[in-house]
């Protein structure tokens, strides 16, 4: 409990509430999509699984296969080769070169992207062009990519999206800190749920309980989110100019390990042997591999590893490409272990929750869901109090629309994906149009309904109905594997996600029944001991 003065508490209550009013709806969208994106890879596998799952990110024999593929691409693209698993578990091999910036044009990577089946290493398809085009060419990861775009950039172009989500991350940080300071009865708030009392009190208590339990998590998410968005948009370019006297590319060149330039031709050593050596040396699992200057005497192989047992940060092992000789190990960031590298490296596992596999992801998902619930119920509680006033009525409708229309639109995007996907063929902007169409339709439903309660019930029912048919669409329309085939192919996540969708759908359909007879009571008559939510509402 923090004993702030009445004046400070009042100011913080106002900051807490108004930051939510101005940015709450967008923040809710970012938190909800971020929560789903925790399972980005699992969603990718569910949406468009490979024929057979691989037991490791870089399957055995990938080195020999890459050598064959290297002979089939433009030799200029052997300048740098990256091999990594995509969200759906298929492998991506990107043979490319770096094109320098020119007046009026930024630097970019140009190359050939080859998609491989993970179990057989058969080539699925390939495409050549600039990196930002080739990585959007295939449709297999379109659903995961759409979700990530919405979470990271709110679908805004260029740096605008990063600025927007950075600002939202900061708003969440402000709300978390002010929310913590205004807690007069933190322990009481955490354990108070008056379900037998009026619905309005139960709703407030649920908001405060979810907010209290997820407060530290919200702080961590907001801090790391603001770090990623603003770090990419302004921090790195500015600091690269100050510390390295150039742009981010210059900084990366300075930080590149020195092997000594030697352009004379030399065959690449046994790549499979290098991967096995890296695994034996660190005790981790190779996650992806990069080869610089393939076919030259100064070739360098960088194997990025999973974190060691009990460790939080992954590292990398470097080998000289021509001889296969071990060169050095690298920490997660930088050439040498450093405080700054470890500090910045921690941001990633803390934000994505992927440091302990599925268990940590489940915890991050649950806490993320609680945070989205807090953002939405906070807005609902705030606006319902003022629903009778003209301006607030619209905000109350908008809150109900986005709160319940966003999940419905996201479910519609998934349904549209299954209806339109043909193998791995690209979908262009189809998912974007589907999403915008979904938002438009749900807005029509929401604003034309006789009350927000009716609109909410309708949208929840719609979300539940769409989610319920998703497994069927995936299986029958998109030609996905059935449960038995999926289980026998090592694609257990397909079954887990199907069941999650069905349970989520049933929860949506069941939830509306609980809302059938809401009991709204006078605030003054129910409780003298104000909770945080009540004091936040009073401050406005």
């Amino acid at each position, binding site marked *: 409990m923090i004993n702030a003065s009445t004046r400070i508490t009042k100011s913080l209550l106002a900051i807490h509430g108004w930051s939510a009013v101005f940015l709450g709806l967008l923040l809710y969208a970012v938190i909800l999509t971020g929560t789903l994106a925790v399972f980005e890879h699992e969603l990718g596998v569910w949406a468009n699984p490979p024929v057979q799952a691989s037991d490791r990110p870089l399957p055995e024999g990938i080195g020999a296969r890459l050598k064959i593929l290297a002979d089939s691409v433009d030799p200029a693209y052997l300048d740098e080769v990256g091999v990594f698993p995509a969200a759906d578990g298929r492998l991506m091999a990107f043979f490319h070169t770096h094109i320098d910036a020119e007046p009026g044009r930024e630097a970019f990577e140009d190359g050939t992207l080859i998609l491989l089946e993970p179990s057989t290493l058969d080539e699925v398809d390939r495409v050549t062009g600039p990196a930002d085009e080739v990585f959007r060419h295939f449709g297999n990861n379109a659903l995961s990519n759409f979700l990530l775009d919405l979470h990271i950039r709110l679908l805004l172009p260029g740096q605008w999206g990063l600025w927007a989500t950075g600002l939202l991350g900061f708003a969440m940080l402000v709300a978390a800190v002010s929310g913590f300071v205004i807690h007069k009865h933190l322990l009481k708030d955490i354990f108070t749920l008056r379900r037998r009392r009026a619905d309005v009190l139960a709703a407030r208590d649920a908001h405060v309980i979810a907010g209290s339990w997820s407060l530290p998590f919200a702080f961590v998410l907001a801090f790391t989110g603001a770090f990623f968005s603003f770090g990419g948009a302004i*921090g790195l370019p500015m600091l690269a100019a100050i510390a390295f006297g150039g742009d981010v590319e210059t900084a990366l060149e300075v930080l590149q390990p020195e092997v000594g330039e030697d352009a004379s031709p030399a065959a690449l050593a046994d790549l499979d042997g290098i991967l096995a050596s890296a695994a034996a040396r660190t005790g981790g699992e190779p996650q992806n591999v990069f080869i610089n200057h393939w076919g030259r005497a100064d070739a360098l192989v960088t194997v990025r590893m999973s974190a060691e047992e009990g460790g939080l940060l992954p590292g990398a092992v470097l080998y000289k490409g021509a001889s296969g000789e071990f060169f050095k190990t690298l920490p997660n960031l930088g050439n040498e*272990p*450093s405080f700054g590298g470890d500090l910045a490296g921690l941001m990633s596992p803390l934000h994505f929750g992927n440091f302990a596999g599925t268990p940590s992801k489940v915890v991050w998902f649950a806490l993320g869901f609680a945070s989205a619930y807090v953002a939405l119920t906070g807005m609902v509680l705030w606006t319902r109090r003022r629903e009778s006033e003209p301006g607030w009525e619209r905000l109350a409708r908008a809150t109900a629309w986005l709160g319940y229309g966003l999940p419905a639109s996201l479910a519609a995007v998934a349904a549209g994906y299954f209806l339109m996907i043909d193998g791995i063929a690209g979908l262009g902007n189809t998912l974007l149009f589907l999403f915008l169409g979904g938002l438009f339709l749900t807005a029509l439903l929401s604003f034309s309904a006789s009350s927000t309660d009716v609109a909410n019930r309708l949208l929840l029912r719609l979300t539940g109905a769409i989610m319920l048919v998703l497994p069927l669409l995936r299986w029958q329309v998109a030609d996905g594997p059935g449960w038995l085939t999926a289980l026998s192919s090592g694609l257990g996540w397909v079954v887990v996600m199907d069941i999650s969708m069905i349970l989520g759908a049933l929860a949506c359909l069941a939830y509306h029944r609980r809302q059938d007879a809401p009991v709204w009571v006078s605030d003054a008559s129910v409780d003298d001991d104000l909770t945080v939510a009540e004091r936040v509402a009073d401050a406005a």
Partner: protein
Amino acid sequence: MAEMMESASRRSGWWRAMLAGPLVFLCSVAVMGALAVVIPPGPALINNVAVPLVLFPGAWGLLFFYACLELKLLRAYAVVVGLLLTNGGLIAWHFIQTAQAAT
């Protein structure tokens, strides 16, 4: 009289919003840049980049709450503008030194 007080309060609200919003953001960016000048790069050459980047949201939050909660608005402006000029000056000095060293 009441109208005058309300108008003055609204004006002061706008001044505080300008301070806590754009000015504090600019100041936090300047603090991040200046930290890159004063923090040694370390053996990995990245401490002066990574540490300011991580500290940026914290510095922004601290300055934001200070700008919102400081009773004397003029003092809050003095502190934030002073920090902005000091840190901005440090960054400018660094660029001048680098340019001179290059020539």
